[in-house]
């Protein structure tokens, strides 16, 4: 590891991308992720890379499609409303199995919403980022250090499994400043890309990147094969953190900024004698079902702490197979749950002793 620096979360994403060999950034500004673009604009010209501010988000994501088709590492970033505009492109990226990294620094919605932090794009990121059957690997950083680390991982997993991967952050982690240790330059990918459109040199057949498959038998087969690949991703790439779960009677599930607040609340609740722990999904897809399923046999109840109207809670219920009640603790619209707010919920749920 190199020297420690003080960075904004958004800057950490940009610098980590560069160190992962990303030399193409295609974006369009939007609060609260604009620092990713601003940082790339300053750095890319100095290292022979391309910073391109497209005329729109739709244009930017289709430029990603173009660059990714050549096998080069590339990235685009936006915030919630901008990601909605990119969704058509995400479907095409998935349909063509193109490794690419998409960053969503979420803000309050729906619509234009606001510019303060949110996690209300959880459904969109994990279940419906566009039409058709597809998945993206979705990584949820909870610190500036993880903004850097998970960005590197996103590039690696995208290449490894030939699929788009998304960093699902939020405005607070994007804007906050923390000390970071950045990995040394990794440069290019270690994965071969024989499918990339790099010119045949008259030595091989043309590679074609295309999502229009008019024969239903073939389109079905491609979908089945892609879902076989997703099974491998589910098996190999699920990541999570357990915090004070050994003796926990209440299990909080939270990711990103909400998990940080939850940890503060857990420490306080423990001081007051309440046994509460945390399962923090680091990959939102694949979702860490196994630890939640296991916890369901041990704990009395779950609390889903999230900055949305109850989205994560559905996956907690599914993973726990509804064996125990799952309570919701949330703020929305750009508001953040305070540690006290979560603590109150913990105390309320503790008082119920496993009842609904």
């Amino acid at each position, binding site marked *: 590891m190199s020297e420690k*620096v003080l960075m904004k979360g958004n800057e950490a994403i940009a610098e980590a991308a560069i160190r992962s060999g990303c030399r193409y950034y295609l974006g369009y500004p939007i609060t609260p992720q604009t620092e990713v673009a601003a940082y790339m604009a300053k750095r890319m010209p100095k290292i022979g890379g391309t910073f391109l501010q497209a005329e729109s988000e739709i244009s930017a994501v289709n430029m990603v499609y173009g660059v990714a088709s050549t096998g080069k590492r590339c990235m685009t970033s936006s915030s919630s409303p901008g990601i909605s505009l990119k969704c058509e492109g995400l479907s095409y990226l998935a349909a063509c199995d193109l490794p690419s990294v998409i960053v969503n620094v979420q803000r309050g919605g729906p619509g234009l919403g*606001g510019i303060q932090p949110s996690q209300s794009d959880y459904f969109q990121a994990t279940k419906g980022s566009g039409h058709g059957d597809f998945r993206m690997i979705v990584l949820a950083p909870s610190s500036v250090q993880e903004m850097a680390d998970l960005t590197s991982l996103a590039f690696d997993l995208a290449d490894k499994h030939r699929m788009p991967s998304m960093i699902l952050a939020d405005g607070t982690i994007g804007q906050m400043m923390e*000390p970071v240790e950045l990995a040394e330059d990794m440069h290019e990918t270690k994965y071969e890309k024989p499918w990339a459109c790099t010119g045949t040199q008259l030595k091989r057949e043309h590679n074609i990147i295309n999502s229009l498959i008019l024969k239903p038998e073939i389109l079905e087969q491609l979908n089945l094969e892609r879902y076989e690949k997703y099974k491998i991703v589910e098996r190999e790439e699920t990541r999570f953190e357990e915090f004070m779960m050994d003796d926990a009677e209440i299990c909080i599930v939270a990711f990103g900024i909400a998990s940080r607040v939850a940890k503060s609340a857990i420490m306080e609740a423990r001081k007051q004698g309440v046994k509460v722990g945390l399962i923090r999904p680091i990959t939102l897809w694949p979702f860490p079902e196994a630890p939640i399923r296991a916890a369901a046999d041990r704990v009395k109840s779950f609390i889903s702490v999230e900055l949305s109207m109850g989205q994560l809670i559905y996956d907690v219920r599914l993973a726990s197979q509804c064996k125990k009640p799952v309570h919701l603790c949330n703020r929305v619209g750009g508001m953040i749950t305070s540690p006290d707010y979560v603590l109150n919920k913990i105390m309320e749920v503790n008082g119920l002793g496993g009842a609904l």
Partner: protein
Amino acid sequence: MFDTKRITLLAGHYGSGKTNIAVNWAKYLRDEGKRVSVADLDIVNPYFRTKDSAADFEEWGIKLISSPYANSNVDLPSLPKELYSVVDDKSFYSVIDVGGDDRGAYALGRFVPKILEENNYELLLVINKYRPLTPDSTTTLEIMKEIEAACRMKFTAIVNNSNLGRDTTAQTVLDSVGYAEEVSRESGLPIKMTTAEKRLCGELKDKIDNLFCLTLQSKLI
């Protein structure tokens, strides 16, 4: 202990710590018995602004001049009309928190003629060696020149605010002294102060000249 001017302008690289210093400098002036106003000229940063300290300012009797949209859900690079009182009402000592980089400094332009005419100001360059885009004097001076070109004013002194957030130790600050001195040598600007969080001040007070102790803005998380 520190020289004071009627107007103190804080500018520098994005994220160099201008806002925290603005808050603490305003408090310092207030403790010196001055009438003080703080003006938030930051049109770049959507979160973490001087307005976060609104309650403290009220308690200290410091006037806050800030966009009604700061820290709200409205994403407008707006400036409050009361900003003109900073240059017009000379009964106040004013601290102006300028936005980061040259982009932030453009907003200062319209006030510059009056500030120069009154000639009772200092424009402080806030620097942090541990920011990834300003690790040395060359890169720091590049940003300094971009800011000067944007706001059409020259810096008068340096504030060495080198820190690593919560990981800052006394050694972190000591290790930045050489960097600050080089920036000073190459720019010809004096180092007005070196800052450190209060918890480190005891350890540093005999080792660093013109140490300015900071109380950090409170954080939610």
